[in-house]
């Protein structure tokens, strides 16, 4: 639906005017701060005193700091692994929930609950549940649950990915549910007549038809994971050591705990560029072959 349809709308006058409020908001709260951050990245500022120009020194400091590749690595690790966990699960759940049966509607409501909770609340809850001394494991005397979940580097990353997935799978399931419901039933009917089984239908009709839905959902996951902050901040504060220090957290720590707004702004700019690049890349991946799609999402 995207290609031809949207360009026609763009030309009509009144509709263009309706974009203005959103555009104004975007410029005021999106572009202006962005320019400010870019400017700040070339200065030295502790948040209190005068701002003084620093040239490229912040960029040099940050880009040569071994902490940066580490943060980038952790960010991508969490991004890729949480994508790999979330996508298949949300796709399956979404397809399941697309059925019109009453019990599925009921289950959909249950699945939706994690999305209603704030990240901070989720982090505090999981932290309590995973506590090696007072948590769920020791409480119920379950040996395998009694681990130092947040105190060992690998376990901590795993826990973050698990919680992120737990929190966001409902949202993406919802997107997929909508996507699946848009697929014309005639295609399934035709496939049944041709003798295709459930599995065959899923892989030959559902998945290809959901191409744009997958791209949308993946873009949200990937770009969204760049900004994971609240959950990790409350859950591990970047620890143990710096095992879960993602870029967003690194930016916060430099800016608001070390009082170095310059280097923090460098990371902010870096994050914006990374997010843009990833979003563009994902668009590219699904861009050209619109023709094969009857219905997008």
């Amino acid at each position, binding site marked *: 639906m995207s290609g031809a349809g949207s360009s026609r709308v763009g030309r009509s006058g009144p509709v263009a005017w309706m974009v203005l409020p959103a555009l104004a908001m975007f410029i005021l709260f999106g572009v202006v701060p962005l320019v400010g951050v870019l400017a700040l990245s070339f200065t030295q500022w502790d*948040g209190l005193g005068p701002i003084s120009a620093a040239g490229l020194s912040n960029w040099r400091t940050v880009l040569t700091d071994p902490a940066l590749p580490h943060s980038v690595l952790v960010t991508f690790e969490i991004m890729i692994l949480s994508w790999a966990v979330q996508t298949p699960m949300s796709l399956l759940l979404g397809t399941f929930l697309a059925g019109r049966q009453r019990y599925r509607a009921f289950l959909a409501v249950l699945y939706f609950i994690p999305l209603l909770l704030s990240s901070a609340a989720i982090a505090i809850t999981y932290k309590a549940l995973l506590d090696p001394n007072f948590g769920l494991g020791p409480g119920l005397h379950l040996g395998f649950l009694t681990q130092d979940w947040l*105190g060992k580097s690998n376990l901590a990353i795993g826990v973050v990915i698990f919680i992120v997935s737990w929190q966001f799978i409902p949202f993406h399931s919802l997107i997929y549910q909508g996507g699946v419901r848009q697929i014309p039933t005639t295609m399934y009917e035709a496939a049944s007549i041709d003798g295709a089984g459930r599995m065959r239908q899923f892989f030959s009709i559902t998945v290809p038809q959901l191409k744009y839905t997958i791209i949308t959902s993946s873009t949200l996951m990937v770009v969204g994971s760049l900004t994971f902050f609240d959950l990790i901040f409350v859950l591990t504060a970047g*620890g*143990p050591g*710096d095992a879960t220090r993602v870029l967003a957290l690194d930016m916060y720590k430099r800016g608001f705990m070390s009082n170095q707004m310059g280097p923090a702004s460098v990371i902010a700019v870096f994050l914006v560029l990374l997010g843009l690049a990833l979003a563009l890349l994902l668009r590219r991946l699904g861009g050209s072959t619109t023709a094969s799609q009857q219905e997008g999402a």
Partner: protein
Amino acid sequence: MTTSIPSPPHQPRSSRRNFLGLVGGGALAAGLAACGSSGPKSTPGSTAGAAAGTGSTYWFLTGQPQQAIREAQVKRFNDANSGSKFKTTEFQNDAFKAKIKTAIGAGQGPTLIWGWGGGGLKAYVDAGQVEDLTDFFGQNATLKDSIFPSAFGAATVSGKVYAMAVETVTPIVLFYDKRAFEKIGAEPPQSWGDIMDLVPKFNDKGIAPFSLGGQSRWTNMMWLEFLFDRIGGSEVFQNIFEGKANGWSDPSALKALDEMQKLIKANGFIKGFSSITADSNADQALLYTGKAAMMLHGAWTYGNMKSSGKDFVTGGHLGYMNFPPVDGGKGDPSDTVGNPGQYLSISSKAGQADKDNAKKFLANNTLDDASVDAWVKSGNISVAKSSKDRLSSITDKNDSEWLNFVYDTSANAKTFAQSWDQALSPTQAETLLDNIAKLFQLSISPQQFADSMNAVIGQ
């Protein structure tokens, strides 16, 4: 009475905010030794003026009992000064820290700026945001003399006083569970060697030797503060504080870092300590539930252990002592670290009438009899020397012993050093906490720790 120091989730952070009681040279030497006994007289505000300032504002932290005491102070001021009242805004610890800095940076800060002194105060001073109170104290000698001298260190920048110590003195002490020591038939440690000897004994009985909220990082830092002092004396950190090059690779510093890792390698701390936070008070819970035998922590934890620990405190099971000496170390065993006080500064951007109000408030309402009474009743030692007089009025035996111990530890300390992360600039403090976490994870060596820290000295 005395529900006391309630270590609300964020109180611990405040407590680490301390400063070397060293900065003001003389104050250091004098230490607290000279604690007199005269009450903090309500000195009339020198700059009275009282020209109906309507815009006087005061922001402070939530969390009982401190919050109620602060509110009562403001109420007394407002009742007594009908023309000029303080408007207060209350914040949770972390929110406060973020908000106050932004507000001050934008020139929208409150008239009275509450803080922890030290490196944070220095940042305000460097930005010209706070009033020089040296003359104010010159004119109010009685007020000045009523406060522990050691509390002025963290309020002093380049020889000038920019803040008044208010509220409480909270040293870091070594808490222990008497029941755990009975179980293994041992006595509390008298030296670092004793500590290392006790570790396997407790581990054999399935009791963790030490509780530690390692995720909070400043909790680990308290250990280093004491080891540095006991091994190399207070001047090791003083050199770092003064920005002397390579201060962190002082041989005593490296030895302290090494001893620290030895204790960690010997399983001196509870399993999983690096995922335990002090904010949830889980580290205290480990001690009072008998899972750990000892805990190095701030005096402010007493209140919570009393209220949450069932009969742990009331049944007399809680023991406490100053950190023991290290064999062959140069440090004075009476030295302590922690919070010499909390501080109030006056915004230099406030109007004259508001500044006068603030001075009046400082002089009349922060360390008046009612405030000191309230602090002591809440299980705290106020920064006012007159706290000592109040101690005899405490009837609860456990509370009375505790308060006397805190008073004596603070008053007899040759050096009362401020917590490192508070004494240092925010930039150094954050790097320090990061490296401490890694040191405790054993992912960096003492030498690597020293190298990373030397790189930010003076920043």
